[in-house]
């Protein structure tokens, strides 16, 4: 996909998807990205998957990203792929850290299930409508979201039998 194609796509998204007026584009280093507001994410993804003139049928991956200290701070990147045209498209949205909620796209792309859970686990972005909104890598009782930029590295105490009772609230 080239820069012109991206602009044309953005125009058709603006025209044909309700509430997606604020779509902006970014074409850098051969990578095409649509930047949209979190509220328009689900309709736009639905449009790109099904109704667009040239659909993007596969969601290869979802990435989380923390733009600390900027606001809106938490980014979610969706990488769409069209196998027929061998083209890729990134869809990017950013949410504020006070209420980090994005509509889940698992109903459109079931493969996003694990990856949205991963982003919830590491960044604390909540995916509304996710069928299984639990942590995936970290323990269920873990506090905090470790991939956030202000989450310190290290300092995680290792639990052994001898120091188990001394660990404050480690099991609660």
């Amino acid at each position, binding site marked *: 996909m080239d820069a012109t194609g991206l602009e044309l796509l953005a125009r058709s998204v603006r025209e044909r998807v309700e509430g997606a007026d604020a779509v902006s584009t970014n074409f*850098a*280093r*051969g*990578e095409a*990205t649509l930047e949209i507001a979190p509220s328009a994410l689900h309709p736009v993804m639905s449009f790109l998957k099904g109704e667009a003139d040239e659909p993007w*049928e*596969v*969601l*290869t*991956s979802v*990435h*989380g*990203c*923390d733009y600390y200290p900027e606001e809106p701070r938490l980014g979610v*990147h969706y*990488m769409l792929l069209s*196998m027929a045209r*061998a083209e*890729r498209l*990134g869809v990017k949205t950013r949410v504020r850290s006070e209420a980090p909620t994005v509509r889940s796209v*698992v109903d459109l*792309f*079931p*493969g*996003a*299930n*694990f*990856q949205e859970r*991963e982003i919830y686990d*590491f960044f604390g972005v909540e995916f509304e409508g996710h*069928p*299984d909104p639990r*942590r*995936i*890598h*970290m*323990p*269920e*009782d873990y506090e905090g979201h*470790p*991939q956030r*930029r202000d*989450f310190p*590295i290290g300092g995680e105490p290792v639990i052994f039998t001898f120091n*188990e*009772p001394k*660990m*404050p*609230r480690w*099991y*609660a």
Partner: protein
Amino acid sequence: MPEDGRPENGRDASGGVLTVPYREREESITLERMEAPIEGTLYEGEARRAEPESELFTINMGPHHPATHGVLRLLLTLEGEVVRELMPIIGYVHTGIEKSCEDQAYWKVIPFVERMDYLSYYFNAQAYCMAVERLLEEEVPRRAQYLRVIHLELNRIASHLFWLGTSALDLGAISMLWYSLRDREKILDLFENSSGQRLHTRYFQVGGVMEDIPPGWEAKCREFLADMPNRLDQYEALLDRNEILLQRLKGVGIVPEDTLLRLGVTGPLLRATGNPWDLRKAAPYSSYDHFEFKVPVGTLGDNYDRFAVRMEEMRQSVRIIDQALEGLPEGPYITENRKYALPPRHELATSMEALIHHFKLVTEGFRVAPGEIYYPIESPRGELGCFVRADGSSKPARVHMRDPSFSNLQALPHMVKDTYIADMIASLAMLDPIIGGIDR
């Protein structure tokens, strides 16, 4: 005490030490979702429930089970011997590699990412290096691209050989493990010869490779290449005409192509259904378009097709390495741009600039202009993509791997639904998950 009556800090109200309630940790994993059939809630299709008179039995398999190829835990709901539901539970070897990467200079991240998918370390390094090279807009010399291809394909063979040995072991063919590890050993010897390490070689650098291949390496590699097709013939003679193996694989674990695509499954699993999606052909990187090779595909998408596709991929890899050795161009093996690659040792004694570059690279590393990139390559297990966000400093602000095992694992419930437990072991083996890549 918290409201739910659980003791705080492992102590009761009077401050005495309580026995630690291990059970409470188990309770956090709820079985509620198991009541709802997977097909009915997540994906369209027939909602299938067990007959009311039949008894469903929930059993835990793993995390320390030899057939799960690592520390994978599976929560199975059985009806007799038949698997009705399956839920993978992962995270047991999560080591926070991606978090650690954010604290390292760009070139120091390479050994970290290599340890994610520990059987295809060259691929992890390649995805990361290419992402950073794309951010830097740095060209990789032709010779380095060819050397990368040679090592990537050797690694693909090594990874598939390990898969072949362990899968055959799961299906009861114990001797295959020794045969395939014998050949894998030769590849590891080649890696040791070219980079000094057998595993996690750190051979790929941003801008090229660490060192040129030593004299005599090419001859050794050719010796291996001449040997490999014969070996594969032998293995096929052992396995592909083995009645037990064929019955265990054929017609088992069929998942249609469109289900796999919706789940984002790539690699040999997808190719087994007949979809020829291979990034080496679809979006050639690192000079893959210079080589002639075929993309093997299956027809049904059952476990036998997955087996056959991987066997043929090894033959094609041999062809690619052969062509790459034949056409190996002369020239530098790493970029000449001293801003990103260490200067040669002999320059340090004579050139002040080289010394300064060396010092800056080793102490701070190079800086990368702000930007985000996603670079996918074809690993032995599917699309391995590396997402890197640069914030202008000498450390990446985010390194995220789209690991194929992680996405492909979601296909497992579909592969094993309504099959026997024994077939689940076969399906898991043919899925070829690497838990280090899943958990990172």
